[in-house]
């Protein structure tokens, strides 16, 4: 039993934290997150140089990490600094590329030279790949895509998209160039900063990645890893929210005393602290069980997403409430952490979705 991060991972954490504190203070972040593309390509490049992308992949994929704990600590630091950009999409796209042994694509991705987003969700999929309708058609020269993807991370400002589409053989994955013919992107900012876009394909040329029809297990595993990442990010955001709220309770005075003296707030704060520790355990469990059999892995990541969904809503809403009026302001960093936490709930399925999934997987387990 060892809950320490280990020396190498701790060094990565320290260097990312120092770098982001220095280069990406709150004012810089707010400017970058709500302007133009909603993220800084320049910062991306510098972080890739520090190893933030390489840490997401193992040596066989050209990286130097790739364990769920490596992924977890990188996303925790991204969360702590509220870094925007296609990080989660890159994680998913990269793991699909790794499964297909696309080492050249991975090399430029890890170096930060090219950025690849990930396009799976459609208007009617609601996180169920079985409902994907974007069509892939094989031609003599390659593949053509037709269909539409929605809320694709930074769709208009990345170099390529890794697209999940359905062909005759079933679900497959494809690389599409951003300026590919027949592709349109409608870009928009996101509530918590950063950007995404709706993408349509009309006979858009694409390059098959991996085996035609064989994408199902690959994209499921990539999503599971992304859920680990989001869980660690959420816990880090909750840690910041808790600390900021504790600071406020220690300093804000009303009725002549600091408001932290009021029992009504103290007991709620204790509950939040407890829920955060349970969330941390859930995130650790999800990372730890990622390498188990599929059922164990999927139940653990759904358990984690359920846990952080519930705790995240509580932590965000209570942090705003305990800050009172000032908690409602754009100017206060806290409010942006609260927004991020609530929006994490909307990524890759919310608390209810994953609770239902956890139950369904459990029933599958019993009847197996």
């Amino acid at each position, binding site marked *: *039993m*060892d*809950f*320490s*991060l*280990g020396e190498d991972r701790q060094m990565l954490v320290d260097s990312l934290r120092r770098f982001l504190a220095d280069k990406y203070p709150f004012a810089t972040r707010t400017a970058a997150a709500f302007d133009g593309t909603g993220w800084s390509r320049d910062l991306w490049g510098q972080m890739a140089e520090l190893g933030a992308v390489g840490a997401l992949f193992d040596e066989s994929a050209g990286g130097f990490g790739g364990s769920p*704990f490596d992924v977890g600590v990188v996303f925790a630091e991204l969360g702590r600094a509220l870094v925007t950009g296609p990080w989660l999409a890159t994680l998913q796209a990269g793991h699909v590329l790794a499964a297909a042994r696309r080492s050249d694509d991975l090399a430029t991705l890890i170096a930060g030279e090219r950025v690849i987003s990930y396009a799976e969700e459609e208007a009617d999929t609601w996180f169920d790949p079985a409902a994907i309708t974007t069509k892939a058609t094989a031609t003599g020269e390659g593949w053509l895509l037709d269909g539409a993807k929605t809320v694709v991370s930074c769709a208009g400002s990345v170099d390529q998209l890794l697209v999940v589409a359905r062909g005759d053989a079933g679900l497959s994955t494809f690389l599409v160039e951003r300026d590919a013919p027949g592709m349109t992107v409608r870009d928009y900012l996101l509530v918590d900063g950063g950007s995404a876009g709706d993408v349509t394909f009309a006979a858009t040329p694409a390059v098959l990645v991996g085996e035609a029809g064989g994408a199902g297990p690959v994209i499921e595993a990539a999503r599971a890893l992304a859920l680990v990442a989001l869980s660690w990010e959420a816990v880090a955001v909750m840690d910041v929210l808790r600390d900021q709220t*504790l600071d406020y*309770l*220690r300093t804000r005075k009303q009725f002549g005393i*600091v408001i*932290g*003296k009021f*029992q009504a707030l*103290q*007991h709620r*704060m*204790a*509950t939040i*602290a*407890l829920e955060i*520790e*349970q*969330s*941390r*355990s*859930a995130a*650790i*469990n999800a*990372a*730890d069980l990622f390498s188990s059999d599929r059922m164990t892995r999927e139940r653990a990541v759904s*358990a984690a997403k*359920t*846990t952080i969904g519930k705790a995240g809503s509580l932590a965000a809403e209570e942090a705003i409430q305990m800050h009172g009026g000032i908690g409602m302001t754009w100017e206060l960093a806290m409010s942006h952490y609260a927004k991020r936490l609530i929006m994490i709930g909307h990524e890759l399925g919310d608390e209810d979705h994953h*609770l*239902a999934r*956890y*139950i369904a997987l*459990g*029933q599958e387990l*019993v009847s197996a």
Partner: protein
Amino acid sequence: MDLKFTPAEEAFRAEVRAFLAEKLPVQLTDKIRKGQHLTKADMEQWHAILNARGWLANHWPVEWGGTGWTVIERFIFETETALANAPRILPFGLSMIGPVLLKYGSEEQKKQWLPRILDGSDWWCQGYSEPGAGSDLASLKTSAVRDGDHYVVNGQKTWTTLAQFANMMFCLVRTSTEGKRQEGISFLLIDMATPGIEVRPIKLLSGDHEVNEVFLTGVRVPVANLVGEENKGWTYAKYLLTYERTNIAGVGASMAALGELKEIARTQKRGGKPLAEDPQFAARLARLEIELENMKTTNMRVLAAAGAGAAPVAESSMLKIRGTEIRQTIDDLTRRAAGTYARPWVPESFEGGWNGEPVGPEWAGPVATQYFNDRKLSIFGGSNEVQREIITKAILEL
């Protein structure tokens, strides 16, 4: 990060399982599975079995008959015994007065009392709470006045668990009314056979007799039975309350109870379908299971920190709060699962050896009383509100 137990720890687990398979009497596990009451003799029998193996005082120093186990080994032992439906080790001697004597008692007191805890000569009870001193324990009023070689004790204790079986009581008494309230409290060891002591049962809402009132009228206690120094008892009392942390969350017992609940959910039908397929019930059950899985890891994290020398004050209170909430939720869902069969009350069925016909499924008989009985969990051992105060104090640092 590595959540696995070491090979040595797994070997230890196997050793505990083998021991339980061999030595844990079926007659005891039967009662526990059926939610029946254990008799005094049942509890003494289990203590004797553990003591014969040298595993009774598993957190005492080796020189006093302890095992020298790590916190992880203790956790494994507690989990495995709970999963095997073994009786719990009674805390009053082993986890309460024992550790206080080990830390603050004189050599004579250790030699006199510790072996008697191990061999079962003494059954201790805890004289802490009073009618006017619950969560605010320091307001206790039971007085002890020095009279030659004795203290003369007058007052009333309450919620005294299993005092009906006890021959000894460790007791907080007021020896001074000057200065801070906490600085006038002393820690006395009282023989329950001393004239002037009367034990009256308190019947709980579940119908159970577990706790008692203890009236003390002119009770003469030898000065040799004072632990540590006069008026320093609060320090010892607090030490006792924070001592035992490895099992505060009751993870093993909750795992066992959840396992039974899941079995019930698979077999009990509602509207022709197993309860496990009822969306409302399945959601409650899933949330509970997720909480317990998280709790297991939280517990391990706290143990790992404690093993590394940290004093996880806030975290221990979190374990107490969430651990008891989880157990109460298991009881709640088990009661709901029984539907109408939660209602019949057949108290004689709670005693061992009962051969009557159960009303409804056998498991349903004790579920409502168990639910009501376990409402105590969030009240005793420092209520969950008191635990929240402890957490806030630690994290707010006000």
